[in-house]
């Protein structure tokens, strides 16, 4: 029982990372019906921006200074990623918006390859180690499981960010515009919602979340390298599909489920199959219920 609890703690911790990344996928898909393959790499960029910021700002580890420092680099990473996301959208995706879906998908693959390899050029292929500015301690939970400060950081950080996102999407005007655009672009336009600006905002927002996820992970799992975004990106995508791609609550729930499933299988069945879990879930979802948990099936008009 204690072990199950531990697995759940671990699973939820990872799951919230997947949720943060999945939100970016789902928001962009909701408005543009486009899978941003390069999204996972923004997660990587976030981690690296934070890494260099730590040195640039001369941050120290431990205690309150450490916590403030962490906040600072998260903020910086989110800002940088938002700028990156908007730039990618303007430069690479907007020109192909009216083309066939396949063209856009391949462009996204190109952007992804670009980010990864530019990362290798800029940062070197060798992994770097993020300074531990938050000390690692274990806290015992009722029930016997342990949760580390890092995990608390991840959980807390993700929670704050997701609550923030919810506020933006459901309580602000711009969020209303985003939702309207994803439901019916023409009618949204007739309400005066400016498509281009909202799309740019969506990309920026999603990228910021992914970058935050990257930093949160780096603070607890210090090993970072330019290809670190590949696998989490794919898994987060699967999480988004699981929850129903285009659905924001779906992305959050999907991410958590994905994290828990992965941890449980890895713990109880076999860890070598860990990466295959995501893809197996994907196949099952696509065959059984392509719309996902919260999504709506779209039918073609004949």
């Amino acid at each position, binding site marked *: 029982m204690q072990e199950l609890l531990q697995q759940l703690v671990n699973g939820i911790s990872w799951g919230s990372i997947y949720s943060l990344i999945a939100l970016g996928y789902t928001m962009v898909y909701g408005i543009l019906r486009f899978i941003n393959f390069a999204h996972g790499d923004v997660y990587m960029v976030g981690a690296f921006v934070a890494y260099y910021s730590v040195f640039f700002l001369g941050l120290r580890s431990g205690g309150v200074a450490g916590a403030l420092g962490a906040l600072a680099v998260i903020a910086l990473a989110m800002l940088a990623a938002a700028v990156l996301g908007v730039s990618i959208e303007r430069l690479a995706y907007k020109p192909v918006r009216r083309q066939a879906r396949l063209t856009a998908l391949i462009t996204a693959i190109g952007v992804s390859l670009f980010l990864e390899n530019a990362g290798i050029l800029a940062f070197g292929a060798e992994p770097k180690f993020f300074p531990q500015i938050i000390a690692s301690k274990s806290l015992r939970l009722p029930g016997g499981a342990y949760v580390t400060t890092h995990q608390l950081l991840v959980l807390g950080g993700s929670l704050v960010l997701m609550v923030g996102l919810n506020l933006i999407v459901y309580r602000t005007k711009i969020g*209303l515009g985003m*939702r309207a655009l994803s439901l019916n672009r023409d009618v949204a*336009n*007739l309400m*005066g919602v*400016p498509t281009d600006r909202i799309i740019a905002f969506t990309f920026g927002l999603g990228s910021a979340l992914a970058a935050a996820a990257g930093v949160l992970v780096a603070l607890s799992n210090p090993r970072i390298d330019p290809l670190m975004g590949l696998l989490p990106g794919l898994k987060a995508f699967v999480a988004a599909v699981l929850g129903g791609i285009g659905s924001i609550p779906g992305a959050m729930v999907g991410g958590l489920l994905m994290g828990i499933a992965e941890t449980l299988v890895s713990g109880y069945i076999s860890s070598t199959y860990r990466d295959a879990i995501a893809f197996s879930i994907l196949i099952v979802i696509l065959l059984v219920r392509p719309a996902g948990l919260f999504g709506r099936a779209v039918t073609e008009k004949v």
Partner: protein
Amino acid sequence: MLEVQNLVVRYGGIEALHGISLRVEEGQIATLIGANGAGKTTCLRTISGLNRPAAGRIVLEGRDITHRSPHEIVGLGVIHVAEGRGVFADLTVRENLDLGAWRRKDRAGIARDRERVFELFPRLKERYHQSGGTLSGGEQQMLAIGRGLMADPRVLLLDEPSLGLAPVLVATIFEIIRTIHRSGATILLVEQNARMALRESDYAYVLETGRIVHAGPAAEVAQDPKVAEAYLGSG
């Protein structure tokens, strides 16, 4: 107020409008009637910026708005209430109405208009927090019109407000249109239900396969046998 000059529109490979011209004077209700496929919705969509014309001009109070984007045109006060209502089923009545006022910044004005919408459509106030999808067809039409009013329109483009509604509701909707008109609104009304439209309007244009074949004061057009022909063909 609003003038369309020699508008040519191509849509999906066809030339849907072959150079049409019409005007709506301030405070007037003009109606555009015609059979299905005649091009009425295409005309409205071009005015509101969703379609781009191949040739011709659209002029609002002397200003050329032909190539502006839809959200700019909304900002200028041309509000298009779409065919089939376009109510966001997943959003609440409140959110739908808020969307209508999306571009506006004057809180007081928005609140005032919201009250006005509630007066016209008490049902919307009752269902304020329900999602749009739970409303009946008639209520959705009311919501769509209400939403249009929330934008403080200078010109209101109404696309087939009676579509899919039972006769009793059609009468209600047209009564509301009359009320809105009486308060000074300028309206361009597109309708398949020719009789009701002609009854409510000041001026009428008859569209047949992309051309205006008849125009004049609504009362005269209503008496003209040619109108029936435009719909049901000549012998």
